[in-house]
C-alpha cells in the first residue's frame, strides 16, 4: 500500500476544495455513451465451468483455426505445450509451422514476431512471463507500438503479446512484477487484463483480431481457476470489446475499480462489506487498461460518491494513480471523500510467503480500506 504521506496532499485538497479546482463539466462531452447498460447478461441455459487456462486455449484454437494469418511463437509453446500449458494441443492440431518453439531470445523472437506483423501476418507472441518481456521491451514499444504512426499509417502491426503478468507464488522480486502501468502508458499499444474465463476468451480473441498491437496481461494464479462461462461465450464468435469495463457487482455506496486477479478479491471484499456493514459496493472490472473505460468509472463514481482502486502494481505512477487522476478531472465534484488506492507495496516483491502476501492487496486489506473510506 502507498505510504501515508502519499495520501496527504489529497486530503488537503479536499479540505480546501471550494477554493482550489474550478468545476470542469467534461464528462458529458468527453466520453461516448457506454454500451454496458444495454448489454444484458448471457442466457442462463447452459453455463459451463471453464478454467482461465482452457478459455485462453479455446480462444487461441479458434483464432488459429479461423485465421490462417495467425501463428503463435514463444519459448516452450509447442513440444512442451507451454510453460503453463496454455498452448496445450496446439502443436498437434496446427503443426510446427504455426506453433513455433523459439530459442531463449526474447528480443529475437519478439522482434521476429513484430517483423512478421509488419509484413502482414497476425502473430501471437507468448512470453513465459512478462518479467522476461523486458528483454524485448524495445521491440514492443519502439517497434510494435510506434511503427504504424511513424510510417504515416501505411505499416500496421497486428500483433498480440501475451503471457502471465504480476506476482505468482514464491518467485521473488525479479519474477513478480505487474506491467499494467508500463504498457498502459504507451501510445500505440492496447492493453487488456482479463480476470474471468469469459474475460480471458473474449479479450484474447479481440486482441488477436484487433489490427493494433495488443498486450494481453494474464495472471499465473488465475490459470487454474474455474469460472462459469455463458453459452454465448462458449461459441466461437464470442468477442469482448476492448476498452469497455464490466460492472461485476452493482452497488450504491462505494465504487471499487479493479483489474485482473484483484477483481475476484474485490468481489469477495464487497460481499464481506455487505455482510459486515450492509454496504453495497460496486465492483468494476476494468478488463482493458488502455483504452480505459473512463465513462463507466465516472458514472459509477457519480452514483456512489466514493472511489477506491485496487491493483497489484506498485503504488506510484500506476493504474490506480491514473484512475484517481481521472476522477479528479471528471468527477471531482461528485466525490464525497478522497479517493483511495489499494496497491502493491513500495518494495521489490519479497520471496518469503508471508511477506509476499503482505506486499499485495488481500481481501481484508480491501475491506479495511473500504471501511476507513466509508468511516464505518
Amino acid at each position, binding site marked *: 500500500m502507498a505510504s501515508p504521506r502519499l495520501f496527504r496532499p489529497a486530503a488537503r485538497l479536499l479540505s480546501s476544495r471550494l477554493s482550489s479546482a474550478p468545476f470542469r463539466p467534461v464528462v458529458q462531452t468527453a466520453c461516448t455513451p457506454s454500451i454496458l447498460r444495454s448489454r444484458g447478461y448471457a442466457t442462463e441455459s447452459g453455463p459451463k465451468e471453464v478454467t482461465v487456462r482452457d478459455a485462453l486455449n479455446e480462444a487461441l484454437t479458434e483464432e488459429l483455426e479461423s485465421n490462417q494469418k495467425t501463428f503463435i511463437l514463444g519459448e516452450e509453446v509447442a513440444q512442451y505445450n507451454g510453460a503453463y500449458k496454455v498452448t496445450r494441443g496446439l502443436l498437434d492440431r496446427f503443426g510446427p509451422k504455426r506453433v513455433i518453439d523459439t*530459442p531463449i531470445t526474447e528480443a529475437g523472437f519478439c522482434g521476429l514476431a513484430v517483423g512478421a506483423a509488419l509484413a502482414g501476418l497476425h502473430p501471437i507472441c507468448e512470453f513465459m512471463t512478462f518479467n522476461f518481456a523486458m528483454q524485448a521491451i524495445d521491440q514492443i514499444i519502439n517497434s510494435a507500438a510506434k511503427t504504424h504512426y511513424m510510417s504515416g499509417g501505411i505499416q500496421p502491426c497486428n500483433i498480440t503479446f501475451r503471457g502471465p503478468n504480476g506476482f505468482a507464488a514464491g518467485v521473488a522480486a525479479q519474477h513478480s512484477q505487474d506491467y499494467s502501468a508500463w504498457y498502459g502508458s504507451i501510445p500505440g499499444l492496447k492493453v487488456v487484463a482479463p480476470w474471468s474465463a469469459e474475460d480471458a476468451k473474449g479479450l484474447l480473441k479481440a486482441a488477436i483480431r484487433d489490427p493494433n498491437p495488443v498486450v494481453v496481461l494474464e495472471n499465473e494464479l488465475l490459470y487454474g481457476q474455474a469460472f462459469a462461462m455463458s453459452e454465448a461465450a462458449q461459441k466461437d464468435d464470442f468477442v469482448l470489446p476492448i476498452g469497455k469495463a464490466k460492472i461485476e457487482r452493482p452497488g450504491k455506496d462505494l465504487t471499487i475499480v479493479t483489474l485482473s486477479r484483484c477483481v475476484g478479491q474485490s468481489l469477495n471484499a464487497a460481499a464481506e462489506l455487505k455482510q459486515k456493514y450492509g454496504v453495497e459496493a460496486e465492483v468494476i472490472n476494468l478488463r482493458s487498461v488502455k483504452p480505459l473505460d473512463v465513462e463507466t468509472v465516472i458514472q459509477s463514481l457519480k452514483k456512489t460518491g466514493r472511489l477506491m482502486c485496487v491493483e497489484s502494481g506498485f503504488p506510484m505512477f500506476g493504474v490506480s494513480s491514473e484512475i484517481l487522476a481521472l476522477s479528479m478531472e471528471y468527477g471531482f465534484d461528485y466525490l464525497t471523500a478522497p479517493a483511495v488506492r489499494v496497491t502493491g507495496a513500495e518494495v521489490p516483491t519479497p520471496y518469503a510467503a508471508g511477506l509476499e502476501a503482505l506486499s499485495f492487496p488481500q481481501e481484508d486489506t480491501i475491506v479495511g480500506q473500504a471501511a476507513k473510506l466509508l468511516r464505518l
Partner: protein
Amino acid sequence: MYSLRPLRRRIPRLAASPSASKRWSTSISQRPGSDRVRFPGAVNSKFTTDMTFINPQESASIPTYRVMDSDGLLVDRSRGEIGISNEEVLTWYKNMLTVSIMDVIMFEAQRQGRLSFYMVSAGEEGISVGSAAALTPDDVVFAQYRETGVFQQRGFTLKNFMSQLFANNNDNGRGRNMPVHYGCAYPRTHTISSTLATQIPHASGAAYALKLQALQNPDKPRSIVACYFGEGAASEGDFHAGLNIAATRSCPVVFICRNNGYAISTPTLEQYRGDGIASRGIGYGIETIRVDGNDIFAVYESMRAARGRALEGGGKPILIEAMSYRVSHHSTSDDSFAYRARVEVEDWKKRDNPIIRLRKYLENEGLWNEDLEREAREGIRREVLREFGEAERAKKPAIREAFEGVYDEVTEEAREQMAELKRILETYPDEYDLRQFEGGIKGL
C-alpha cells in the same frame, strides 16, 4: 537551418589547425597494389576472384579437449602425471559428491513442499567444481543458477547452502531470494540473478573494473572474472553484447558456457545451428576452447590456462565451452520426460558422468574403493540432513529486514511504517508470535 551555421564556420577552422594533419593510431588506408583489403572493418583480408560462400556445415567442428576417457584413463599416456595432488583430487571428488547428494535431498524436499523451488546440477558437477578449482578467492564469479559446485568448491558450506534455501537468518541474501540464488562477499561471488544472461555483460563490466584497478595498484595480485551460463542463455542478446564489449575493451574475463544439451525443453538442435557456442567466441575475436565437461581434469586445466591468458598483456576475454548432458530436470518446475525419453537420460547417467569418471580414475590410481565410497556418501548424507534440519529450524531474519535494503538508507516512509508496526506489536503481544524471528520485537 540557423543552428547549422556556427558549426559550418567551425569546420574550416578545425581543418586548418596543426592537429588536422596528424593521423589517428587506428587510421587505415588502402595502399595501391596491395593484395589485401585495408578497409577499416577487415584489415588483413586477401582479395580473391573466387566467389565462395563459406558453408559452416562443410568446415570441421571445433575439437573437444579431453584428458581422460570415460573409463578414467589418461588419453595421452605420454603426457605424464596429472600434476595435481591426490589430496586435491579427492577434495574435488567429495565436492562433486556433496553437490549430487544435496541435490537429491533438496529436490525431494521441494516435492514435499518444504521449500518453494530447487535446481539440481546432475551431470554438470565436473564443470563447476573443476573450473572453480582453478580460481583464487579474489577472482570474481558471476554464476547462472546451475553452478552449485562452484560455490561448494569455493568454500560455501552446507550451512550456507541450507540457510539460503530455507531463507533463514543466516542467509547472506536475508531471505529475499528464491532458493539457489546464492551469493557471498568473499570469495567474491555475485548473487545469482533470476533473469537469464544478465550476468554476462555484468561480468565484462566487473572485469573492466579489475583491469582499471590493476592499472592503479600494479603491486596487487591480479584477478579475473569467471562468468558462467548455459547454451540457452547464449541465445539472449546480453550474451552477444557482453562478449563483444569484453573483446573490444580487452577485459580479463573467462566465459564458461555449460553446454548441457537442453534449455528447459528446447534441445540444442533448436537452440542454434552453428558449431556450438565456441564458434561464436571466434566470431567476436575471443580465444576459445571446447572441453569435455565430464572430464574434470580437462575443465580444470583449460580454466587454469584460460585464467593465465586472460591476464596476459592488459587483459583479454577467453571463452570455454564445456560439453555435458543435463541429466536432471531443468528445475523443480519441470518434468523433462515430457520432451525427452527416459531411456536417453538413464543411458547418459550410466554411460558417462563426471562423478563416475573421476571415481574410475581414483580407483585406477588406488585412491578410492567401494568402502570409501559408501563411507563418504553416508557421511555427506548425514551432514546434509543435519544442516537441513538446523536450517529449517533456524530463526527467520529480524523483522527489520523486511524494510531494509530497498535503498541504501531506510526511507522516511518505511521508518514511519516500522514505528507503526512496533506500536501494534507492542500493543497486542498475544496476537503475534515473534519467536520465529531473530531478536523478536527487538529485531525491529
